């Protein structure tokens, strides 16, 4: 199968890129599940953008730089912040309906690490779903875009240092050759036992890129979200947006103390890593399993209107946010590292781009400021589209082989990896445990190499 542009992944990074590519190019989007199953659809809090007169580029850049421990690529960050309004306008043009006041002004909220109210939101606390639903309906109307659901990229195809597509798997394995290939496969939450991510986030794009010879960057930086709903039941750790703390909720320990003020002057609204470590420390020091989010002092009607989805989910789990403290813990949330790209989203392999959470553009530095990741998806998605629009690439490769596969069982390895990563590569790390984890993971990879994976795998 041949396409002008192959996009691996179907989240925000993918769809925004696709919709900004010229309509005379044939685009194929492949997704491991369907378009609705991705982290983008789960985003609650919103998307950061400098749109208000009271806000300034300088302040957004400064907040991001501080949260990123001054490790950010300042040029990329400058570009992202300064084009944020245009990128948001384009979302609005596509039909995304952000929450507004009666006078038509866009509503903005506050989140940890931001010094101004600059987070746009939609549907209260279902920003990601509103954006994705709107973009999906745009994609469906575009005759040049084909979406292949339940289709997983398993390796990239290269001709020397040029990427010419990917080997993919749905009911069989086949090649999709392309002029341009964009990896937009999202995060790595699936590597951990406790995560806010969907289970499809297994770092596929990063592994494919690595096998193809891409440079990776900042792989040690993983953000843990301070407030995931705590439950002993598997699969029940849904996110409770930072915006809840942004609107005034407190974090308390079992002694009913607002402990975050001990760790940072911004208290509950300190940067995420500090809040996550504060929670971790409380759990160790007090031998607790969770801490509590207290929103009971906020106006009941405000909670229900501002956080309808979170309110409903907590209620379904037996907690009424208006009256009860919500049990929370810090879990894996966002991957900062990834495939190294330039301003145009290009990797070190020709015609291969990476966008969204799987990419490392440098904008987040050593830690991501809340709500900057959706902005990163659309900023670099747009740049990639522009680069593709302006660089028609002549050669056309057709490689139409298909493969058949053997049948093995190795399902237990997934759980093993998740336990190792949760235990030894979590919020607080040490050299001894990391070395132990390294040996255990190497053993797993050796098993793969020994038993299953070889050049004549197919």
């Amino acid at each position: 199968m041949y396409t002008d542009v192959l996009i691996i992944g179907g989240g925000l990074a993918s769809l925004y890129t696709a919709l900004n590519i010229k309509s005379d190019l044939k685009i194929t989007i492949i997704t491991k599940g369907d378009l609705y199953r991705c982290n983008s659809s789960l985003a609650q809090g919103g998307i950061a953008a400098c749109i208000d007169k009271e806000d300034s580029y300088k302040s957004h850049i400064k907040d991001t730089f501080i949260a990123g421990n001054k490790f950010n690529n300042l040029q990329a960050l400058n570009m992202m912040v300064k084009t944020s309004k245009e990128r948001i306008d384009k979302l609005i043009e596509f039909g995304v309906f952000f929450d507004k006041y009666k006078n038509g002004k866009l509503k903005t909220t506050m989140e940890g690490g931001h010094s101004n109210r600059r987070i746009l939101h939609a549907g209260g606390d279902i920003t990601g779903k509103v954006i994705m639903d709107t973009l999906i309906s745009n994609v469906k109307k575009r005759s040049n875009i084909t979406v292949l659901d339940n289709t997983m990229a398993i390796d990239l195809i290269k001709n020397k240092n040029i990427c010419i597509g990917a080997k993919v798997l749905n009911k069989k394995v086949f090649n999709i050759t392309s002029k341009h290939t964009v990896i937009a496969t999202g995060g790595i939450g699936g590597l951990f036992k406790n995560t806010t991510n969907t289970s499809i986030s297994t770092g596929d794009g990063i592994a494919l890129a690595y096998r193809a010879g891409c440079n990776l960057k900042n792989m040690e930086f993983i953000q843990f979200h301070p407030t995931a709903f705590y439950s002993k039941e598997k699969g029940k750790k849904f996110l409770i947006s930072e915006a809840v703390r942004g609107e005034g909720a407190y974090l308390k320990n079992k002694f009913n103390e607002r402990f975050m003020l001990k760790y940072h002057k911004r208290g509950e609204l300190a940067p995420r890593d500090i809040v996550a470590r504060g929670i971790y420390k409380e759990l160790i020091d007090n031998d607790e399993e969770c801490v509590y989010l207290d929103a009971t002092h906020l106006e009941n009607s405000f909670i229900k209107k501002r956080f309808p989805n979170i309110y409903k989910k907590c209620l379904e789990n037996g907690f009424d946010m208006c009256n009860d403290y919500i049990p929370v813990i810090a879990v894996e949330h966002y991957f900062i590292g990834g495939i190294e790209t330039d301003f145009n989203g290009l990797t070190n392999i020709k015609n291969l781009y990476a966008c969204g959470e799987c990419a490392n553009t440098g904008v987040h530095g050593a830690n991501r400021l809340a709500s900057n990741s959706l902005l990163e998806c659309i900023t670099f998605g747009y740049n990639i589209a522009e680069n593709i629009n302006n660089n028609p690439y002549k050669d056309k490769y057709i490689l139409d082989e298909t493969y058949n596969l053997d049948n093995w069982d190795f399902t237990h390895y997934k759980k093993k990896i998740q336990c190792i990563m949760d235990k030894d590569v979590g919020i607080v790390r040490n050299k001894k445990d990391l070395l132990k984890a390294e040996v255990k993971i190497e053993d797993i990879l050796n098993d793969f190499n020994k038993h299953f994976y070889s050049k004549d795998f197919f």
Partner: protein
Amino acid sequence: MILINIFIVKIFFETLNMATVSKLIIKACLKREESLGCHYIEK
């Protein structure tokens, strides 16, 4: 041999990718010996 349990093949690649990325993360963690941002290392 002709396949075909596609589901199993999918799990195979997902698991291989998970192990590969885990290895790369651990290597990067070991390389950065000082805490920085969300990489926090206890001495």
